């Protein structure tokens, strides 16, 4: 079984761009809208790429800005200068 990871993001301007970037960069990801938030599920591993979010926002987005938009997640986290990865070991 491939274990699912997930992240829930606020429905805000930044949040919409993050969700869009995730869906574009992770073909297996699916999004589930809930009131005020969107839960994104993906089998095994999910990557949030800073350049991809920046492109959608029209400004430079630092992966640490995820702290302003995230609501919850399921999985382990690895963070570096260009991306944030949620995965199971």
């Amino acid at each position, binding site marked *: 079984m491939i274990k699912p990871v997930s992240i829930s993001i606020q429905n805000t301007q930044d949040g919409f761009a993050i969700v869009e970037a995730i869906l574009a960069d992770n073909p297996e990801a699916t999004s589930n809208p809930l009131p005020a938030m969107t839960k994104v599920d993906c089998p095994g591993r999910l990557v949030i790429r800073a350049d991809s979010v920046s492109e959608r926002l029209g400004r430079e987005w630092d992966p640490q*800005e995820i702290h302003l938009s995230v609501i919850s997640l399921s*999985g*382990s986290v690895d963070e570096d*200068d260009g991306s944030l990865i949620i995965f199971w070991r």
Partner: protein
Amino acid sequence: MTPRKMSLKQKYGAYTRGLDWKPTYQREDDVFPFAKYEGIKIHDWDAWEDPFKLTMDAYWKFQAEKERKLYAVIDSMAQNNGQLGITDARYLNAVKLFIQGVTPLEYQAHRHFAHLARHLPGAGLRVAAQMQSIDELRHCQTQIHTISHYNKYFDGIHDFTHMHDRLWYLSVPKSFFDDATSAGPFEFLTSISFAFEYVLTNLLFVPFMSGAAYNGDMATVTFGFSAQSDESRHMTLGLEAVRFLLEQDEANVPIVQGWIDKWFWRGYRLLSLVGMMMDYMLPKKVMSWGEAWETYYEQAGGALFADLARYGIREPKYADVAKAEKGHMTHQAWGIFYNYTHAAAMHTWDIDEAHMAWLREKYPDTFAQHYEPRYRKWREQAEEGKRFYNNGLPQLCQVCQIPMAFTEVGDPNTISFRVSEHGGDRFHTCSDGCKDIFDHEPEKYAQAWLPVHQIFQGACGGATLPEVLDWYHINQGADNMDYAGSPEEEQWNRWMEGRRPVVPVAAE
């Protein structure tokens, strides 16, 4: 030569481990006196790696940004009569339960994470605990600040810290946290950061905040999501902390498993209050308790425990009981509050036809058979002027402190209770889960401050209900009793006068 900019990981190392030192004129064991007595063995603190590489400078920057966003909404609420935007005044009872039951826990968490920030021997974990301590204080303050707007108009919010220390149903969350803060540092990490924040917090915050959004409560959504953004960091800390303990020494595995079993069950029982809120207190409902349990525990928890299986960790004991009870638990909890609403600082109400239809749909195997007839009977009694109030005091579980109203698994007509003997006395618990916890540490739980016992001992203001309610600081006739006939209902109806369409909507 200009210095090169450090990468995120280098910077993180410099700001955490780089600030640490080895004590030279004091023994390590004297500096960290709580680190060993629980039996947890750590061989290499340097193996700890924080998943989020958040350094103090970035922490302040992002937290300040969160506060700016939140306070813009709080100001806007106050300036625009935000209380008029909620779906129905009954919704506010969920907020009352939150500030009475949860906000004081945030403060407790603030205090105890400060303790961990001093007493954990690893620098990385200490820095994470320090940030979390500040986060929890922020949550407590912003919740009080946000909900203070509602306190101007609604009852039951005015003295929540006093109530938290005294009221029968608030001893459930209070004793949960007292249990955690009186444990050692590693049990606390496993209980709060892992079992509660990682495994179960989604069931508290996500439905609560989604519920608030769906019911027009802009303020609660905003503080909730502001807090929840920190919570993602806390839950990740919990997962990595448990993984670290498991990787450090095989002897840690059975100790951690015992804590996971205990705190899963403690947390699950605590969530009865949240489940009841989801199924009964939101005028517009987001998802049922049963659905939330499936999404956030059975699916997400399933992936988690499959991942931890490599260390020899299994699913929490009695997770199967929680699964089997999911069609019963919230209805039984609401029943307790309906019985004792005269002694609560929140309202209950008759379950109307539309609500019953929703409950039948969400709980096809249990609701119509076991709970609908009960509500119909209660409605009938109320219509005859004989609204049922339970004037006896219930037996409480010695561990979770919930009145003994939950039933045996597979037998919803028999109350579940267990008996243990300790020191020549008999102690009652509500389930195998709570009995195991009692039997493992009877010296601890024999000391529990049980609200009902305290009333009988004369420690709660007097022998009559009005005296006890005065001691609780319940404003009688306003904070307690049914919503129907309450000052809040009268006020809400007055506010809504003139807002209702005078001409019937043609499409209907």
